[in-house]
């Protein structure tokens, strides 16, 4: 073992020696695994940032067998330090090992019931293993789970704000979007939650997974809260299994959505009561309650479209609240949240609804529009590049070439004959 440590220390400094080191480590793989947790003291001899590759192999061997609670807590600290400080280049040589180490780390942290300890290291790990900020790694969903369990939603949001375009494993993406949706719901960013859940529901899949079902349930509720409406028809690009089966599995939610669209709060509440147990089991009861309060808001917003001034009593009547006082509370809350623009005249008990003061003339607005334009142009460029890439892809050309055989030999044929497979 000491020989190994010496090798690691010696060969880690020079990047040219790294492949050599890698081979040595691979050969030592089995003997390391045999030692397992007994290798822990070896780690003290190594520096995680300089000897990352070696450190990684030893760590992986340490954690390869099941550990007791004390053993786990002993491993956790060095692993966290490693994840924070390891060297990116060395790690890239053995990504699967790194990922499995991080995953086990997450398991230990959860076993010790201290998910918060894992948040920062996991974030650092993601940055190390990502090839670009658009790359989704298997660590992303693990990180989000830790954020959810430790209620560190803001940390989760920082990752979610980055756009993902490259995916290693479809399952990772589904989990990532599902957990991401939950975090956004926690932070009340319903628009982003809707986007993420939409991605799960419309992802290509050949069988219905539990993730898709749970995501669909939340999707319905968030759609009601954010948009005030829900259409049961899924977009055309949804997979056929999803289109056929999702609605049947989530029947109570569909019923709830239908009663929302009638606008009658009493009906909605009855349906919610009816399926209360089910919602509770799915942990969606909180969302259902939010949907109820969003219904009041939407009804009040509708009033702003028709009235310039309205008495609090009339508002209470038309929105089916119990008293003018309650109406006043609701309106006050909405004004504070910026959902409507109004002033309350307490003397007369009247509310005056005002127009949206946004004139679209300020510098801030111009900046916003400008950045939108830039962003969209970048996206559009991305699309064009992708299009070009696909047209050069040999598999695509092969398929197209096959169909070209119908045409006359003399016809102008942009696809070279070589691709007529």
């Amino acid at each position, binding site marked *: 073992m000491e020989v190994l440590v010496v090798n690691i220390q010696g060969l880690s400094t020079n990047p040219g020696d790294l492949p050599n080191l890698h081979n040595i480590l691979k050969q030592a793989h089995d003997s390391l695994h045999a030692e397992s947790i007994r290798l822990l003291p070896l780690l003290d001899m190594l520096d995680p940032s300089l000897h990352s590759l070696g450190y990684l192999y030893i760590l992986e061997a340490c954690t390869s067998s099941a550990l007791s609670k004390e053993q786990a807590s002993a491993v956790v600290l060095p692993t966290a330090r490693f994840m924070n400080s390891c060297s990116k280049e060395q790690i890239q040589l053995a990504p699967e090992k790194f990922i499995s180490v991080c995953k086990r780390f997450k398991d230990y942290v959860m076993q010790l019931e201290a998910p918060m300890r894992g948040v920062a290291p996991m974030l650092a790990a993601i940055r190390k293993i990502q090839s670009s900020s658009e790359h989704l790694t298997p660590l992303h969903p693990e990180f989000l789970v830790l954020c959810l369990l430790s209620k560190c939603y803001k940390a989760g949001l920082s990752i979610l704000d980055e756009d993902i375009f490259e*995916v290693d494993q479809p399952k990772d993406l589904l989990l990532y979007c599902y957990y991401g949706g939950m975090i956004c719901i926690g932070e009340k960013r319903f628009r982003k939650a809707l986007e993420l859940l939409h991605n799960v529901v419309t992802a290509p899949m050949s069988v219905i997974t539990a993730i898709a079902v749970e995501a669909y349930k939340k999707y319905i509720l968030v759609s009601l809260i954010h948009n005030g409406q829900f259409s049961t028809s899924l977009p055309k690009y949804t997979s056929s299994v999803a289109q056929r089966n999702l609605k049947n599995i989530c029947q109570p939610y569909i019923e709830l959505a239908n009663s929302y669209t009638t606008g009658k709060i009493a009906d909605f509440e009855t349906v919610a009561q009816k399926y209360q147990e089910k919602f509770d089991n799915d942990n969606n009861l909180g969302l259902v309650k939010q949907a109820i309060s969003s219904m009041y808001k939407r009804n009040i917003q509708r009033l702003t479209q028709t009235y310039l001034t309205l008495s609090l009593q009339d508002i209470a009547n038309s929105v089916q609240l119990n008293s003018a006082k309650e109406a006043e509370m609701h309106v006050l809350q909405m004004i504070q949240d910026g959902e409507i623009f109004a002033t309350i005249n307490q003397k007369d008990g009247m509310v005056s609804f005002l127009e949206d003061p946004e004139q679209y003339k300020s510098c801030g607005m111009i900046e916003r529009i400008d950045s939108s334009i830039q962003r969209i142009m970048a*996206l559009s460029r991305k699309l064009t590049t992708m299009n070009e890439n696909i047209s050069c892809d040999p598999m695509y050309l092969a398929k197209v070439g096959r169909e070209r055989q119908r045409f006359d030999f003399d016809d102008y044929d942009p696809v070279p004959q070589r691709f007529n497979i």
Partner: protein
Amino acid sequence: MDADDETTAAMIDDEIYANGGGEDEKRNRPIISGEPLDVEAYASLYGGRTKISRLLFIAEQSRGCRNEAMELEALRMAYDEVKKGENTQWFRDVAQKIDGRLGPEYQMDLAWCESVDRRAEQKREKLENELNAYRTNLIKESIRMGYNDFGDFHYSHGQLGDAFKNYVRTRDYCTTSKHIVHMCMCSILVSIEMGQFTHVASYVSKAEQTQEALDPITVAKLRCAAGLANLEAKKYKLAARKFLDTGHELGNNYNEVIAPQDIATYGGLCALASFDRAELKACILILLFFVFWNKVIDNLNFRNFLELVPEIREVINDFYSSRYASCLDYLGNLKANLLLDIHLHDHLETLYDQIRNKALIQYTHPFVSVDLNMMANAFKTDVAGLEKELEALITDNQVQARIDSHNKILYARHADQRNATFQRALQTGNEFDRDVKSMLLRINLFKHESNQKQSKKS
């Protein structure tokens, strides 16, 4: 302005009654007015099957309103009419409905039923034999006439489905466009009685394609039928156009389906509910012309012929000149009797609602601000109800305004186009963003799937 309204209303009343024909000395009662319907006069406008079906409809409706006098009157007339024909099923129905309430003369007459049925059976055998003979001889014209006679036979005995089938069969044996037109007219007649207005529409268009064989009366009949089909399909604007296009030549020639007044009534109501102001003005002129022409041509005919048409014309006139209260009042008076009409019955509520909404919209259109109290007066309703109605119209985006509930004023509101455009642009940008990103993601996932499949294959 209110005092003005009263006097002009009074003047219009005089005008209506003066229109009835200067030659009659006593004041002519309109057939359909605010007063209870004169069933006999109403029925005299029609002939054929529609007379009986309308009478039965009136009886049914009156029973619903517990108006026994009218019900019995209608049933009595229906009994007399049915006995003149050969439809024993209808006879049995009517006798059952009368239930002995009209005395011994209007009882179930089984002997009559049996003799008619026997005669019918004999006739049917004869027709069938003739038809078979023609069919073996393969003379097209005779076969056509044979099927036609069969159709007529079934029609007079109330077997509408069979009648329709036979009329349609003549299509294969029609040699001239006149035959085709005849077949279409018969099919249309039966379809209207059966209530299958999609057939009506298709046969009307079929008949209209044979331009040469159409004389003005047939053209007018076809337009009428098309109007009825549109009415049933709730396409009120098209129905109004068709009815108003029906020329004066129709006269009484189609009274087995519709009376000339009905054209004016149906056309006028549909026009009120769906036309804009320019078209409404033209409608008034057409109805004026209708009255004038028919007065000139048919001044010998039944005295109350013209009474209804000025009524509808006045309603439209009121609406056009913004005298909404009197217009809506008048319509309310006419409602009870219009509900007894077999074609209008199902559509009257909708038409009335549409007319009322149009009145409200038109009232508010020219103003920047409207005092709701004055508006409530003009429409003879209370402010709270008016507010509710306006709220519905605003939510529906038919009125661009806002209600100041505190001061009870309606303010016109024109959307700020510039702000709306900015908002829409930003929103479109966001949607594009979102959609393209998820699309790129999906492409990536597909590539994955196909890569996996490739690797599985190889």
